[in-house]
């Protein structure tokens, strides 16, 4: 009886303040339509034959040894990338956090560079360096058959592309392990080795596991690198699914492959979120401590320094190659400096540059704002199915772009949602693909902000709308802008889902880069990439200039 009265009271209260209720319903509808519905379509088409439930498509797909190979290759490469990428990321993060080596700032910057480049740039550079006409293999060592196409080339390209993810996560983990713990261990007569293996490493295990799972998901979902590097010799699922659909016009097999791509990603995501995520040690108590820098010996310090220097130089080499390539006539054949590539790009690709920019500038603010709204609802409001909203809105972290792309063409090619080939479908796709990062940073920041601040605004007469716009949003500005930057960069560099959605009217730069490099015009592809990068940096620069005062103000007031 009592509970039902409370429930009635809550309903009455909601009805008196209907904005929140309407907002919650609207967001659920959007999630259902643009995240869940496409996935259901993929599942549906792969499990039916002539309108009936059937496993025929799967039998066919798995009867094909070439496609079976794709599944195992995908898992293999994802596993290797996760292991090695995490290992290197850990060394990098550990060295920067626990030694007093010089140039830390520079190292840190280099480690995050790959983030602002399209994810498949690594593949392009690796061909230019180690391929048939590669600068290093052919020009320096005279080797022409270096096995760059296949497992190793792809793995290196992926590790470079996803290195920032590994570094940033592990940097966060190691920097929050209080150095006083190390002091305490030394004080209890542990030696350096013991301190590392008994204190630092065990405390990092949840972070390491989480990094590996994230890299695993990223690698599985990667499309650009394998398209350029893996070729037919090393089939992987994402590329196979794409080729089935665009090459063979076989939507069913494409969807079935997509489902097989989706499964391991989803499992990794759920393990990461609900198992590893809960095991995190919290060692931050009160004020941050200054590092005592004792757990690394003097010899080890310089060994680590050498290792991260090599990693950094390699990353630099990859991206400098792109710039160099953009200004050469024909990479590997004629290295004359020229601006012709840029002229070519503007002739051929002006339209796609405009389209890309328009789509990114439209989707970015919507995505960032939506992320903040969802974060606000999840952290601050109670409503039925809240956990469901959180899980489904974050789902696109785990769903590979290829799967989303296929889902979108299946879901939105008939009335009343006839969206394929339009500007809108690309915008919607980007909004919902990149909203999880906004949600996560919003949730993290809101968690640190005293809910009493918002409650104070309510008692002073503010309604939900006012509280959100005047109090919450200003307080989570940093999260909002990091979401803005992230989703802009990702929208500019997106490929795996977008490649299914582009049309003659709306094309993207990344698709152009891929097709240029596919047809061997590496220098032109580089020029395209350089323009893309310039746009990204310009956006970040303008944002920084424009918001200089505002951002610093918010940061200084954070309690």
């Amino acid at each position, binding site marked *: 009886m009592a509970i039902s*009265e409370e429930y009635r009271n809550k309903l009455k209260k909601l009805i*008196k303040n209907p904005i929140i209720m309407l907002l919650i319903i609207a967001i659920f509808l959007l999630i259902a339509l643009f995240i869940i519905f496409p996935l259901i379509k993929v599942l549906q088409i792969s499990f039916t034959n002539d309108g009936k439930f059937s496993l025929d498509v799967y039998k066919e797909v798995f009867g094909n040894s070439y496609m079976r190979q794709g599944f195992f290759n995908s898992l293999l490469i994802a596993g290797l990338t996760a292991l090695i990428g995490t290992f290197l990321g850990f060394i990098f993060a550990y060295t920067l956090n626990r030694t007093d080596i010089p140039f830390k700032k520079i190292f840190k910057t280099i480690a995050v560079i790959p983030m602002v480049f399209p994810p498949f740039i690594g593949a392009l550079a690796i061909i230019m360096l180690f391929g048939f006409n590669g600068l290093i293999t052919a020009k320096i060592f005279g080797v022409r058959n270096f096995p760059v196409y296949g497992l190793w080339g792809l793995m290196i390209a992926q590790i470079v592309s996803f290195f920032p993810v590994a570094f940033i996560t592990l940097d966060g983990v190691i920097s929050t392990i209080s150095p006083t713990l190390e002091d305490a261990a030394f004080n209890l007569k542990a030696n350096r080795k013991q301190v590392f293996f008994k204190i630092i490493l065990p405390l990092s295990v949840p972070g390491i596991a989480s990094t590996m799972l994230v890299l695993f998901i990223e690698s599985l979902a990667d499309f650009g690198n394998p398209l350029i590097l893996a070729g037919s010799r090393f089939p992987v699922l994402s590329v196979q699914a794409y080729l089935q659909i665009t090459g063979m016009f076989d939507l069913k097999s494409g969807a079935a492959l997509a489902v097989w791509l989706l499964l391991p990603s989803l499992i990794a995501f759920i393990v990461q979120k609900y198992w590893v995520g809960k095991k995190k040690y919290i060692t931050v108590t009160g004020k941050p401590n200054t590092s005592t820098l004792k757990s690394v010996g003097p010899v080890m310090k310089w060994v680590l320094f050498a290792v991260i220097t090599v990693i950094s130089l390699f990353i630099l080499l990859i991206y400098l190659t792109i710039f160099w390539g953009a200004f050469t006539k024909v990479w590997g054949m004629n290295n004359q400096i020229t601006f012709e590539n840029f002229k070519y790009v503007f002739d051929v690709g002006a339209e796609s540059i405009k389209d890309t920019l328009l789509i990114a500038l439209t989707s970015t603010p919507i995505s960032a704002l939506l992320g903040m709204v969802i974060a606000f609802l999840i952290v601050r409001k109670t409503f039925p199915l809240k956990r469901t909203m959180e899980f489904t809105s974050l789902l696109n972290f785990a769903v590979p772009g290829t799967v989303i792309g296929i889902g979108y063409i299946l879901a939105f090619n008939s009335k009343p949602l006839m969206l394929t080939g339009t500007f809108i479908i690309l915008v919607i796709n980007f909004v919902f693909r990149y909203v999880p990062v906004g949600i996560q940073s919003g949730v993290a920041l809101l968690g640190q902000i*005293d809910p009493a*601040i918002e409650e*104070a*605004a309510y008692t002073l*007469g*503010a309604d939900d709308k006012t509280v959100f716009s005047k109090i919450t949003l200003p*307080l989570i500005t940093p999260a909002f802008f990091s979401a803005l930057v992230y989703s802009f960069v990702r929208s500019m560099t997106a490929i795996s889902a977008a490649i299914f959605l582009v049309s003659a009217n709306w094309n993207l730069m990344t698709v152009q880069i891929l097709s240029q490099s596919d047809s061997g015009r590496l220098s032109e592809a580089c020029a395209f990439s350089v323009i893309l990068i310039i746009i990204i940096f310009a956006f970040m620069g303008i944002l920084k200039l424009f918001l200089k005062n505002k951002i610093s103000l918010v940061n200084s*007031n954070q309690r």
Partner: protein
Amino acid sequence: MSLNLVNLKKVFKSDGVENTAVENFNLDIKEGQLVTFLGPSGCGKTTTLRMVSGFEVPSSGKILLDGKDITNDPPNKRDISMMFQSYALFPHMNVRENIEFGLKLKKMSKKEIKVKADKIIELTGLSGMEKRNPDQISGGQQQRVALARSLVMEPKVLLFDEPLSNLDAKLRENMRLEIRRIQKELNITSIYVTHDQVEAMSISDLIVIMDKGKIMQVGNPYEIYVRPQNKFVADFIGNVNFISGKVTEINENGIKVFNAETKKEFTGYSNQNIKTGDEVYMVIRPEGIYTEKEGRENSLTGKIEKYVFLGSNIELDLRLETGKIIHINEYNMVEKELPVTGKELEVFFGKKNNWIIKK
């Protein structure tokens, strides 16, 4: 502007386990009264306050403001302001903007807003601070801003959620006097939540003592201290000695209680409906026990276990033959000699310091 809390109940459910935070809560608050909710943490005082403010929905019961049912009104539709433990100042607004926030939402004219804000800034002693941000002023000043921000709304009811617990002792004392002064000056009906009994004693018209979600006693500070109605209240406020016993006789001189351990009879008084033969507690405050007889009816004998000299007073523990410890607080040590540990001592207390409550 009266506030009536009628049969309030709040049950929290987590993972299927029900936990009653507040039940059977009935209270009538008159205009201009400052009522304190006092109790140990987890007693339900903050939950009750949050139901009044609208942040928690009662599981059952009603909240009436001037006779109007506001139980289901959202917080922003209630004429109630709240001051938070963490102050909850808006970090992205300066002092004046914080104070004017609610007025602006009321769509008042700029002139009116300025007049009201200036008056309250003056009243809370914040002149000269208007342009500063919350992180540029001291804890005490932040406190004043929070108070000013609530007061400027001229609410019918003002709520305080442990507002002084983040301040140091000295500042706390000043601030609570100031809160009381302003509250009286503006005659605002207020509820004040605290776990600090000195704070509650010093500012309240009425104290509500709570434990485990229930009201244990409602009364003014004198009643609460001198006439506690149960063991919890007697124990929670101040220091106390309990001696249990059985009522042997009731006459115009008081209530006679026999304690079996010491085989002694004591005289006390009570306002409870006590009958001969009842099992009772005798509530004896340490500061009402003396070493001089001077006409006091009751006495105890024991050995001095230990004492702590505190300057203005001395805290002394007396061990009775039964093994029980009696706490004694003696004042005016300037004219007395220090006690000797282990020495036998007889102490006396009058029937006025022997408050009798039912077991």
